[in-house]
């Protein structure tokens, strides 16, 4: 009988280590798997039996003896018994491509990865030309999952077309948006998938060096990625002459240093070069002059992970998921004040309400939901009238919101939306790279103006001024940091003005 206790950040943060020690004390060595992404059940203990993998959760160390007793008699009688984990509706109803392997086994075990169809995409890619690989990516309809949703195949074609002695693949793993953990879950639950996707990208465009730019706030992912890379090199899935193909791809993890702006691709490249993370003006595009001035593919973790699926299952299979111009699956991350938070992978098109009510089951506090922020700190706060919007890049853009990296943060009715608008500006003060004035100074003035509005100092004129300031930031900033900080501010003004004027909680 095999036992599984996850080793991902959330499971550890909820006490997985103590639960694992309790199992060891009982003479059982658990497999340290990745998380399934059902975070409200962490630490989730799974026991492999003839009836499938039975779940118990959330477990603490003191539950272990009674669970072991129950397994001898009637497991279903235990109060934490969840039944077959794969039949839990939250998981069973998902359309998992990127997260199909998450939680099944030890994330850094190469044999486990290969048993679960790992490196099949790479093997397929090794028999194709660079152009054929790029064509598959184009046909899949894959758009960048970092937030900007730029078609990945077009970016790759640009890099492929460049004539250069050196090209780079850079993975943007600086997942700084609050409410997001999809990249982390890939890196902690299935790191080889990212390694495979990056290697395929290298083959496609002719790049021999890759970097994963990982945020320093992810120590567990850092440890697991380094182990995975070391083992992939030993097994010749990375390095010189990959699997006897004559092709080369080297990969290295580089740690960020706590700057949110380094999630912006040009700032990230500056940081990788060892400089301040100052945003670059475009053009030149990074695809033409990127890292160290060379043609560079910069893609998010999820984009590169999806490449493994596309090359394994074919562009058409991937393309068959989704709606409109948003193809494939979206990694939705349900967070904040939510009863059942976690990772939900679904084809584009599910509505926000379905995610929050059906999967999330409402707030953790049990109070009514007041606002939902989608797409990180630069995303709009959506009032209930907008929760029936389908999760699709274009549908969200149409209501002046964005899907971004797919993070959803739920607030209950105690939230003060004026305070949240102020925080959006304050965050921009702390995290602006400082290169352009609308972002650097505008954010500071934004905090001040919001304070005056709330304090009822010449409120009407200050409201006009705040809108003016938002225009300046939106139109005059160099990148999305200053350009989109007004989104949460304006949505708070549009839908929750009473929080600014102190006229009670009645939303407009």
């Amino acid at each position, binding site marked *: 009988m095999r036992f599984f206790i996850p080793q991902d950040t959330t499971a550890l943060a909820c006490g997985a280590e103590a639960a694992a020690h309790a199992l060891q004390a009982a003479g059982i060595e658990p497999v340290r798997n990745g998380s399934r992404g059902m975070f*409200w059940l962490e630490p989730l203990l799974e026991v492999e039996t003839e009836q499938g993998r039975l779940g118990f959760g959330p477990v603490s160390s003191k539950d272990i003896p009674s669970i072991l007793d129950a397994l001898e008699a009637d497991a279903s009688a235990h109060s934490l018994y969840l039944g077959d984990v794969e039949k839990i509706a939250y998981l069973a109803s998902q359309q998992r491509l990127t997260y199909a392997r998450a939680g099944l086994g030890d994330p850094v075990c190469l044999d486990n990865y290969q048993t679960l169809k790992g490196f099949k995409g790479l093997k397929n890619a090794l028999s194709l030309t660079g152009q054929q690989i790029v064509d598959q990516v184009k046909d899949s309809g894959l758009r960048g999952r970092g937030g900007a949703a730029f078609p990945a195949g077009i970016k790759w074609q640009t890099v492929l077309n460049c004539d250069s002695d050196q090209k780079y693949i850079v993975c943007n793993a600086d997942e700084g948006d609050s409410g997001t953990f999809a990249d982390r879950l890939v890196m902690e639950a299935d790191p080889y998938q990212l390694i495979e996707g990056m290697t395929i990208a290298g083959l496609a465009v002719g790049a021999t060096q890759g970097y994963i730019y990982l945020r320093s706030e992810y120590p567990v992912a850092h440890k697991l990625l380094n182990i995975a890379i070391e083992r992939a090199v030993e097994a010749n899935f990375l390095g010189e002459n990959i699997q006897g193909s004559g092709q080369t791809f080297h990969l290295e993890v580089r*740690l960020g240093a706590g700057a949110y702006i380094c999630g912006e691709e040009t700032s990230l490249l500056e940081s990788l070069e060892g400089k301040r993370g100052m945003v670059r003006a475009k053009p030149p595009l990074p695809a033409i002059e990127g890292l160290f001035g060379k043609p560079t593919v910069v893609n998010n973790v999820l984009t590169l992970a999806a490449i493994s699926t596309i090359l394994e299952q074919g562009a058409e299979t991937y393309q068959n998921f989704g709606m409109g111009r948003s193809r494939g699956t979206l990694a939705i991350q349900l967070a904040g004040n939510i009863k059942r938070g976690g990772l939900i992978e679904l084809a584009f098109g599910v509505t926000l309400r379905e995610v929050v009510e059906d999967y999330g089951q409402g707030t953790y506090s049990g109070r009514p939901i007041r606002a939902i922020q989608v797409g990180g700190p630069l995303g709009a706060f959506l009032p209930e009238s907008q929760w029936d919007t389908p999760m699709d890049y274009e549908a969200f853009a149409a209501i002046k919101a964005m899907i971004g990296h797919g993070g959803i943060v739920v607030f209950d009715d105690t939230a003060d939306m004026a305070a949240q608008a102020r925080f959006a500006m304050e965050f921009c003060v702390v995290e602006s790279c400082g290169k352009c004035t609308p972002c650097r100074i505008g954010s500071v003035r934004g905090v001040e103006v919001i304070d005056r509005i709330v304090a009822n100092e010449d409120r009407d004129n200050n409201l006009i001024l705040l809108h003016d300031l938002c225009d300046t930031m939106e139109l005059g900033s160099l990148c999305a940091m200053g350009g989109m900080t007004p989104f949460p501010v304006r949505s708070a003004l549009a839908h929750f003005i009473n929080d600014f004027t102190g006229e009670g909680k009645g939303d407009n």
Partner: protein
Amino acid sequence: MGISQNEQQSISDLVDQYKDLPGALLPLLHAIQGEVGYVPDSAVATIALGLNLSRAEVHGVVSFYHDFKTHPVGRNTVQICRAEACQAMGSRELEAHAKAALGIDYHETTADGNITLEPVYCLGNCACSPSVRVNDDIVARVDSARFNELVANLGGSQ
């Protein structure tokens, strides 16, 4: 505050070890901070010389990133997540409690040198907020009582 001969030597050794790496500065600064606990002012000239940069460039990088410290910090670092998902679960109250309980503000260190308190913007544990990082361990669903426990486990004189 000066640094010891040994620390100066290990900084020089690290510069030698990293200087040929493409984009060496961030990995080098992380390594120095890992060894010494912070990036001393006196290291800037050594780094600049080794990497063929100006001292202003090195200083500019050290000061740009939140992670790099230019003075000694506590034996333990406690970070409280200030980002939206944690705010939705009461991190503003947790911040106020933490500052009052430790008697320090953000970026300060307790008088006994045990704990430095820092803000952080997202630890990626947003489904089980509020989150706190104690050194390299991330802890979920931290309320005031849980915070007190975490601090008590770190010893010190409080």
